[in-house]
């Protein structure tokens, strides 16, 4: 039964594990209990929630596969629904080192921006490739390229979704690094540290989550919370939260159709 307004928790609380729980975001989740190998092959799907009125409007899929002797391949898909039926989509393939931070070595990225009729806008069709080697960060697009120096170590925002699942909890030493946000915004002086454990109800079961906090230039603090198996269930920062949810794709498709009906119906 839907809660009355008076019964609903206050909708302007900062995002925390507790507030996500209080708002019912965690109650519908049922992560499998069987063994999970963070260093193996897996797919994690997250639903994007936004703090203002706790609405959801997108998804993030991260697929991991070991690659060669010392590598990891990450495939990333991000979809964000915007007003007026616009849709922003990013697809990236990252070849990373199998190191603590899953540091990218090379990648391909495509960005599309669709209007309500699924037609690409004039701001769509971005395609680029990049490499990180010996302190040089190179991005290639078309027949052009740009190279900059970057401090080491460097990782990416998506790599961190992989890396935190392999960290050893309270034994984690603070990690310092630079970060490529979406592979092309350099954010310096990042630090990732263990920030404790919490017991929460997830899908009707009590789970013990362990957390890591990231602070640094150009980001509001991120918190990443993994379950006993290491599976990343929650990642949040500022006004957004990514919550583990294998049904996110279906939700996004349903929401997209509804947005298109509303927008096109009005015209």
């Amino acid at each position, binding site marked *: 039964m839907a809660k009355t307004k008076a019964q609903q928790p206050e909708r302007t609380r*900062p995002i925390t594990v507790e507030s996500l729980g209080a708002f019912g975001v965690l109650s519908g989740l049922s992560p499998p209990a069987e063994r999970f190998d963070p260093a193996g092959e897996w797919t994690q799907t997250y639903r994007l929630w936004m703090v203002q009125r706790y609405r959801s409007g997108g998804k993030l899929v991260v697929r991991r596969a070991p690659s060669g002797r010392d590598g990891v391949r990450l495939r990333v898909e991000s979809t964000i629904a*915007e*007003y007026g039926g616009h849709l922003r989509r990013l697809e990236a393939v990252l070849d990373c080192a199998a190191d603590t931070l899953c540091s990218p070595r090379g990648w391909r990225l495509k960005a599309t*921006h669709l209007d309500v009729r699924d037609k690409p806008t004039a*701001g769509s069709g971005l395609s680029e490739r990049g490499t990180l080697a010996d302190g040089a960060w190179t991005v290639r697009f078309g027949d052009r390229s*740009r190279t900059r120096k970057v401090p080491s170590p460097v990782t990416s925002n998506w790599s961190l979704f992989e890396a935190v699942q392999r960290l050893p909890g309270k034994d984690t030493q603070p990690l310092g690094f630079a970060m490529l946000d979406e592979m092309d*915004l350099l*954010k310096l002086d990042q630090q990732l540290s263990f920030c404790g454990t919490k017991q929460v109800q997830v899908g009707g079961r009590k789970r013990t989550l362990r957390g890591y906090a990231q602070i640094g*230039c*150009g980001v509001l603090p991120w918190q990443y919370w993994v379950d006993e198996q290491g599976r990343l269930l929650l990642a949040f920062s500022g006004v957004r939260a990514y919550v583990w949810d294998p049904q996110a794709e279906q939700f996004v498709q349903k929401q997209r159709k509804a947005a298109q009906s509303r927008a096109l119906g009005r015209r």
Partner: protein
Amino acid sequence: MVTRMHPEDAPPSRLTRRDILKAGAIGTAGLVAGAAPEAVARRAGKAGVRPPNILLIVTDQQGLDTLSALGCDHVATPHLDRLAGQGVAFAESYTTNPLCSPARSSLFTGRPTLETGVVVNGRPIPETMPSMGAWFRQEGYETLYAGKWHLPASYTPSIPGFDVIATGINGQGGVCDAGVSRACQAYLRGRRDATRKPFLMVASFLQPHDVCQFVSMHAGRKEMVFYDAVADDLPPLPNNFEFDPREPAAMRRRKRPQWSEKQWRYYLWNYYRMVEMVDAEIGRVLDALDDSGEADNTVVVFTADHGEGRGRHQLVTKNYLYDEAARVPLIVRAPGLARPGRVNRERLVSGVDILPTLCEYAGIDTPPKVRGLSLKPALEGRDGPAHHFVAAEVTRTGRMIRTKRYKYIAYANDPVEQLFDMQADRGEMKNLAAGTAHAAALKEHRKLLADWQHGLDIHPEAS
């Protein structure tokens, strides 16, 4: 917003009667219908050069002194610093109205909000009033818009005179600003044909507006989540943290957060991270402009709709006339600047000056009845008309007159006026209106305000 010029400062009118009739009688829609790409070629032939592209970057809720290049020690803004180093920054730059929709209505029309009628959020620019997109499109520009509009809808796929290449998500700058910069990046990198029409692109970011969410999430002494690792990095309280309780009633009614010193400083720390977030997105757009090969023929203007309280006078957010809310960054990078890297600390500028400045750079007429003045002569080191004062409005009843020395604030039906000596008291802590020592200045500023308002075509819904 603003101003009233001295008669000798009036810019030479290049408008014909036909122009005025065209704008007034058929309005914006008519201007779009009359789009004339040949206008660009005509002007190019006349001047011997291709008209410049224009990139207008707008952020939301970013006060003037939030750039490391302009002296803020608590933030790292390498991309805006680069722009400031290559351009000219104006240190006495004021919004017409420190609220989103009103301020934006002035940016896009060159008119004060008493004339646009957009004196509160969520109103449209009147259809009969020429505005930037349609005006430039009529002159053969390719006009593109990405991000926040708020006239009336915050985000919309349909903006008069513009092709919308990205919308956004209300209240979620941390989520949607990347979509704005990515769309601009894709368009700019994809422009490979130098014979194409020049473009006017607006990149309208929401950050650091997410500070509004931070404030509402932590209102009423709600617990904040602190991180020990930043304890040594928290900015100090501002010098003008205190406030005079004998403020105008509109200010006394404002809720001031009852935070501890640590909470105030943590709020500031978060705000500056949001500034850094938008700086990074701006960097993506500026890099893409470089990648396009057209940066040398592009006028880049960076500004914000209004500022943010930041604890000054123990205030947060906006919608009042102290400098922290009313003073906004303005940086112009353009071909032919007299002294790139300079901070102009003398000239009073206003949001109404943006449109006429862009028009002059493009070599096109300024729409009729625009109240602003082009900054191009000053940017190129030439003499030109300048404002004797700039004006701003707020909450229907509040008015501000800023001259080089003083700032005067008055609210309708409120006997409490404020007069600050902006040279001796930059923090606006000592109200001089109550004493007699500055009676002449008070009288002069009252008259400036009355005369300014009297000279406006006030929109019926503005009063």
